[in-house]
C-alpha cells in the first residue's frame, strides 16, 4: 500500500512536470491550431536562462544567491516569451490555416535553436547583431522609396545574402583577431548543470518515504501556473479575447477583437510557460541541447489525450500519464500484483523507463478508440470539429 502511495506521489510529480510542459502547448494548440515543435526548445532556452542567472548570482555572491531561482523563473519566462514572440511574428503568422506546415517550420526552428545553444559564442552574437543591423537598416532605408513594394522581394533576397556575407566576414575576422575570447562557445555541446538552492535540497519524510523538496517546489510551481492561467483566461479582458478567438475566430474578428494581437500574445504566453517549465526541469537534471526533445512528444500526448482547448483535460491527462508512467516504469505495479504470476511477468517486462513509454502509448491508443477527441472534447456542431 505504501509502495502505491509513494508511486502515486512520484507519478504526480512527473505529471506536474509534464503538465507545466504541456500547458503552454495546449493553449497555443487550442487557440491557433499550431503545432509548435519548437516548444521543447523554448523549454531548453528557459533552462539555459536559469543556468545563466545562477552563474550571474554566483558571481555576485552573498545571501541573494539562495533566491536566484525566483529571478531565474522570471527571466526564463521573459526570454522564452520574447523568443516565442519573434517566432510568431517572423514565421508562424504567415502560416495560419496550414497546421502541417507550421509543424515543419517549427521543427526547422527547433533544429536551429538546438544548434544555436551548442555553438553560440560572442563571435556568433556579434555576427548576428551586425547582420540584423545591416539587413533591417537597409530594408528601412529602401522602404522610403516609392517603388518599395515592387522591389521588396528582390531587396530582401539580395540584402539577406549580402548581409550574411558581410557579417560573416567581420565576425570571422574578429574571431581570428581576438581568438578564444570571442570564439569560445558559451555552453558547448555538453550538458550543463544547475544546482538547486540549498533550501531545496533534501526532503520531508512522510510515512516512511521521502518527498524531495525539489519535487514539491515543482508541484507548487505548476499549481501556481495553472491557477494563474485559469484566472488570466477566466477573469482578464485579454483572457476573454483569447477564449473568444479560440471558440470562433472569424466571428471574433467580426466583433472587433484584434485577432492578430491575440495570436501574438497567446503565443508569447505559451512560450513563456515553456520557459518556466524549462526552469523547473533544470532543477531535476542536467540541461543539454537535446533537453527539449525528451519532453515534446510526451507533452503532445498530454494535449491529444486531454482534448484540445480544455485546461481541465490537459490537467487530468498530464497527471494520469505521469502517474501511469511512473507506476509501470518503476516496477511498482509488478510488485503490487505479486500473487498473480503472469501479471508480474507482464509488468516486469515493461518495468523500465523506456518500456513504460511503450505501454503508456498502447494505453493511449486504446483510450483514443473509446474517446477519439480526448477526455474533454470541444463541443460543437461542425463536422470537422
Amino acid at each position, binding site marked *: 500500500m505504501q509502495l502505491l502511495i509513494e508511486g502515486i506521489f512520484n507519478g504526480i510529480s512527473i505529471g506536474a512536470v509534464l503538465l507545466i510542459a504541456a500547458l503552454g502547448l495546449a493553449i497555443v494548440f487550442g487557440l491557433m491550431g499550431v503545432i509548435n515543435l519548437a516548444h521543447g526548445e523554448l523549454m531548453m532556452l528557459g533552462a539555459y536562462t536559469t543556468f545563466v542567472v545562477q552563474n550571474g548570482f554566483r558571481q555576485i555572491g552573498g545571501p541573494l544567491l539562495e533566491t536566484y531561482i525566483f529571478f531565474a523563473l522570471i527571466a526564463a519566462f521573459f526570454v522564452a516569451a520574447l523568443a516565442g514572440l519573434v517566432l510568431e511574428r517572423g514565421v508562424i503568422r504567415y*502560416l495560419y490555416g496550414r497546421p*502541417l506546415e507550421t*509543424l*515543419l517550420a517549427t521543427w526547422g526552428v527547433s*533544429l536551429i535553436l538546438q544548434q544555436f545553444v551548442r555553438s553560440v559564442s560572442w563571435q556568433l552574437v556579434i555576427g548576428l547583431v551586425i547582420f540584423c543591423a545591416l539587413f533591417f537598416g537597409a530594408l528601412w532605408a529602401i522602404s522610403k522609396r516609392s517603388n518599395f513594394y515592387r522591389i521588396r522581394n528582390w531587396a530582401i533576397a539580395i540584402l539577406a545574402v549580402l548581409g550574411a556575407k558581410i557579417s560573416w566576414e567581420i565576425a570571422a575576422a574578429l574571431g581570428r583577431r581576438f581568438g578564444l575570447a570571442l570564439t569560445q562557445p558559451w555552453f558547448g555541446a555538453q550538458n550543463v548543470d544547475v544546482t538547486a538552492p540549498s533550501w531545496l535540497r533534501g526532503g520531508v519524510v512522510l510515512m516512511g518515504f521521502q518527498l524531495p523538496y525539489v519535487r514539491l517546489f515543482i508541484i507548487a510551481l505548476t499549481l501556481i501556473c495553472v491557477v494563474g492561467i485559469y484566472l488570466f483566461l477566466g477573469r482578464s479582458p485579454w483572457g476573454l479575447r483569447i477564449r473568444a478567438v479560440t471558440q470562433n475566430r472569424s466571428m471574433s474578428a467580426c466583433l472587433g477583437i484584434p485577432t492578430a494581437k491575440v495570436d501574438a500574445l497567446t503565443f508569447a504566453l505559451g512560450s513563456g510557460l515553456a520557459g518556466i517549465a524549462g526552469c523547473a526541469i533544470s532543477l531535476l537534471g542536467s540541461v543539454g541541447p537535446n533537453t527539449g526533445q525528451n519532453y515534446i512528444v510526451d507533452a503532445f*500526448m498530454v494535449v491529444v489525450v486531454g482534448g484540445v482547448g480544455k485546461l481541465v483535460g490537459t490537467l487530468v491527462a498530464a497527471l494520469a500519464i505521469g502517474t501511469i508512467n511512473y507506476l509501470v516504469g518503476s516496477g511498482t505495479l509488478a510488485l503490487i500484483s505479486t500473487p498473480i504470476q503472469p501479471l508480474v511477468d507482464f509488468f516486469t517486462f515493461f518495468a*523500465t523507463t523506456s518500456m513504460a513509454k*511503450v505501454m503508456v502509448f498502447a494505453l493511449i491508443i486504446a483510450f483514443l478508440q473509446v474517446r*477519439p477527441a480526448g477526455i474533454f472534447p470541444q463541443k460543437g456542431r461542425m463536422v470537422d470539429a
Partner: protein
Amino acid sequence: MIDTLLGIPGLRRERQTRRNLLIEAGIISAIALVLIFVMPLILSGFELNLLGRFLALAIVALGIDLIWGYTGMLSLGHGIFFALGGYAIAMHIKLQIPSTSSIQLPEFMTLYGVTELPWFWRPFYSFPFSAIAVLAVPAIVGAILGYLVFRNRIRGVYFSILTQATTVVFFNFFNGQQKLINGTNGLTDFRTILGASVNAPQTQFAIYTLTILFLIAAYALSRWLTSGRFGRLLMAIRDDESRVRFSGYDPTGYKVLVFAISAALAGLAGAMFTLQTGIISPRAMDIGFSIEMVIWVAVGGRASLVGAVLGALLVNYARSRLSTEFAENWLFFQGALFLIVVTILPDGLIGWLRHQGVNQVRSLLGSRQLATYPSLETDPEVQHEREVLSKETSE
C-alpha cells in the same frame, strides 16, 4: 485527325495520354540506363554507393508523397517502417552463419548469454520469407496502426502527433531490447547474402542496380495508383474528407490501404539502404530522420512523384556536401531549409516550376505581361454583366 472527323472526342484524348505515358516511360528508362551503365564509369566506388543510398531514400520519399502529397496525411513515423524493412533484411544476413562455426547464433546474442534463437528470428533463415517480410512487416504494422487511428477519424495534426509518438515508442522498444536485437548498437557487420559477400564490389553494384529497378517499380506503382480513380479518390480525401464520406465512400479503407502501401515502400527503401550502408540501428527511427523524409518531399514538390524523387536526391546530396564542409553547422542549414521551403516555396520546386516559375523567369528577363484572371473570362456573372452593359450602351 481522323478521330476528330469521326467525332469521337474521347479517343483523341486517350491516344494523347497513351503517347504521354510512352514518352514518360522512355525518359525513365533512359535515366535508368544512364544510372546503371554510365554512372559507374564516372563516379568512384564510394560515390556510387552514396548515389545508391540516395536512390533508396527516394523510394521512401515516393511513399511519403503518396500519403502526404496525395492523401494529405502527414506521417512523421516513416522511420519505423524504414527501420523495420532494414531489420528484416539485416536479420536474414545475420543468420547466414557458416555451419562450421560452433555457435549457431548471431554473435551479439552470445555476448548477452542468449542460448537459443528467439522465435521471431527463426523464419528469417529463409530468404524468400525475409524478402517478403521487408514489404509485409511494415505494411502490416502500418495497416494496424492506420486502422486504429483512421477508424476514429483521427486526422490532420493529431495523426501527425500520433505517428510521432509511435516513432518514439518503437525507438524505445528497439533501443531497450539488447538481447533480442542488439539494442542501441543495431545490427551490423554483415558478411554474406545468398552466398555472396555483401561488401564485394560486384554485390554492391548488383544492389545498386536493384535499387534503381525498385525505384522504377515504386514510381510505376505510385503513378498507376495516383493516375486513376483511386488517385482521384485520394485527392478528394485530401481536399475534403467529410464530403467524400457524405458521397457514400468510406475513406478509412482507402486511407489504411494507402498507408500500408506507403509503409511497404518505406520498408523496401530501408532494406536497400541497409544493404548499402551495412548497418541498421534504432537511429533510423529517430524522430528527426522521419521528419527529414517529409522535407525531401516538400522540397521537391508535394503531389508530384518526380518532385519526391528529385527532392530526396537533392536534399541528401546537399546534406552530404554541406555536412562534410560545415559539419558543425549542418543543423543550421537544415533548419533554414525547413523554414525556406515552407514559407517561400510551399509547393516545392516542381510546384514552383508549374505555377509561378515561367512567369517569374519571364518578368526577370524584362518582358512583362499583363493578364486578367482567366477565371473572370469564364465567370457567368461577369459575362452576364458585360452583356447587360453592352446592351445598355447600344441602346
